[in-house]
């Protein structure tokens, strides 16, 4: 990898330190690197997902409040998979249409049913957004400890080697400790971004959820207004 310096007995490059480490420390390092890889993958995916979801929400809200007929909107949206606010809207509309297409006496619990459906679809969407964020949380909290474990183990073996060689000069002590500290460095390297991005993503999820809930409330109020109009029209017909 790198030309080993002949004057220095220990190769102090990353590679040299990794290969010189104890088996347990090596495992810890590899695990931590894998955790870092995974958490970064999650971070990137979630960022892309959230920006997509937020953009689609903006677009949907624009079309929703543009004054077009809800029936048309539903027709266009129900044909393809939806996410976010559109999914909530599709869920609510489906329940509404089902109630109307079937027997006319289904108005009694329609309001409650629609609210339930909206809640469920919001929960489903939120769960989709939040999935894998817990991995970031666990990496953020556990990686430093795992790295510390590797360090303690490495220092332990280093001291054992020192005790055997009966030489405690700094040149003998230093490489072992450097190797051991390398494990903690990797642990922190994995944990710090995981922690920061977990908090940031969590905030975005909460914002999206709040947006969907407010939309659901507005949508259910619109539906209930429609319902009331429908009932009064029917009563007028009846009268």
């Amino acid at each position, binding site marked *: 990898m790198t030309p080993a310096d002949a004057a220095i007995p220990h190769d102090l490059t990353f590679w040299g330190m990794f290969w010189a480490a104890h088996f347990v420390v090596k495992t810890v390092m590899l695990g931590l690197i894998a955790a*870092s*890889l995974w958490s970064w*993958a999650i971070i990137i995916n979630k960022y892309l997902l959230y920006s997509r979801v937020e953009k689609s929400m903006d677009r949907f809200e624009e079309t929703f409040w543009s004054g077009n007929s809800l029936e048309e909107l539903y027709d266009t949206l129900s044909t393809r998979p939806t996410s976010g606010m559109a999914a909530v809207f599709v869920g609510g509309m489906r329940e509404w249409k089902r109630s109307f297409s079937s027997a006319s006496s289904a108005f009694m619990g329609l309001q409650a049913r629609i609210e339930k459906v909206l809640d469920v679809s919001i929960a489903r969407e939120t769960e989709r957004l939040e999935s894998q964020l817990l991995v970031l949380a666990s990496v953020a909290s556990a990686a430093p400890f795992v790295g510390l474990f590797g360090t303690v183990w490495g220092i332990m073996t280093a001291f054992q080697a020192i005790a055997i060689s009966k030489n405690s000069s700094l040149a003998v002590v230093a490489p072992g400790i450097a190797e051991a500290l390398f494990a903690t460095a990797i642990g922190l390297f994995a944990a710090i971004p995981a922690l920061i991005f977990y908090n940031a993503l969590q905030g975005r999820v909460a914002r999206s959820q709040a947006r969907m809930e407010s939309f659901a409330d507005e949508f259910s109020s619109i539906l209930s207004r429609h319902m009331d109009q429908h009932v009064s029209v029917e009563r007028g017909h009846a009268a």
Partner: protein
Amino acid sequence: MKFRPTEPGAYISAALHGALLLGALVSFSDTRKFEDAAEAIPVDMITESQFNEVVKGLRGAPPELAKPVVDRVAEVEESKPQPVLQEAKVDIAAPPPPMREPDPAPPEPPQAAAPPEPAPPVPTPPPRPPEPKVEPPPKPEPPKPEPPKPVAAEAITAPTPPPRPRDIAKVEPPKVEPPKVAPPKPAPPKPEIAKPAPPKVEPKVPPKPALDRAQITALLAKQKKEDEAKKPAKPPSGREATEQRKFDPNSIAKLLSKEEPGQRASTGRAVNQTASLGSPTASGQRMSPSLWGQLDGYMIDQYKRCWSYMSLGPTARFIPQIEVSFTSAGVLAREPRLRNQPSDPNLRALADSAMRAVKQCNPLRIPAQFLPYYNEWKDRILRFDPEEMSG
């Protein structure tokens, strides 16, 4: 894992990690060494007198400290008797080599030892013709013959090994005599008494020829026997000595040093780490308070004699302080200086008288015992108190 365009995170993450690892490998590969910082050496400022105290040797060193420094005990092979044996005359019993005293002087070459002949004290004298030559010296020097007598008495009762070579030089002439003279004469107790000696010496010389040969030979035989008993290992004859003189390559190898020149340490009979007249741990001496008191007493005494000042009634209290510095002989090293110049003209007289006293007493007598502490008393301030003077 199937690539989904909506979730490229895993690939981007892997690529980022790979890039980061490469960067770390590059940046860590040239971890620079710390610069070798020169260590700071603490420096203390010391005064001249402190320095003198450090380097000054031990004044009251016991005599054994005066020996040369020896780091290592010398090899035993360098024994001295060998040269003595080689030139010995065939007839004469080998003189017992000097046994004690690590004397740095080389063994006396036998040729040098032979003429005086005293080294084997007893055996030689009677048969030797040169003896009369040796004898005359005692006559002009009366006190010398005296001291050996007690020794002689001892020599008869219990023959002692020959004295050190150093002593021989002094005592040798009388020693020739002892066996003959001692029996008739009880030695005076004090060898130091010089006056009675001359008359005694005179009678001594005549009796010697008078001594019968039988007695001498008996004594000789006795001495020889005892000598032989004492050191039977020594080859008495010159033949073996010549054998020993033969060229022996082994002995050359023995003589050659196998050490590196730098490793060679000074050698001697006994290890002596102490440098002569000094000690690795001791520092210079300081004057004790009582010594200070003595010195002050001496100085006050002398200055009192030199100082004459008539006080004209009660004046303002003024004590002239004069700064002086002495040489080690007690002479003023430079002009004395009045530290507190008085403004009152009346007092100026007092100050002047003090200055006069200092100059009058100029070669101050300072006892030799204070010489080692010269550094401590070389600069002094003398205070001339008129009240003390009158009192």
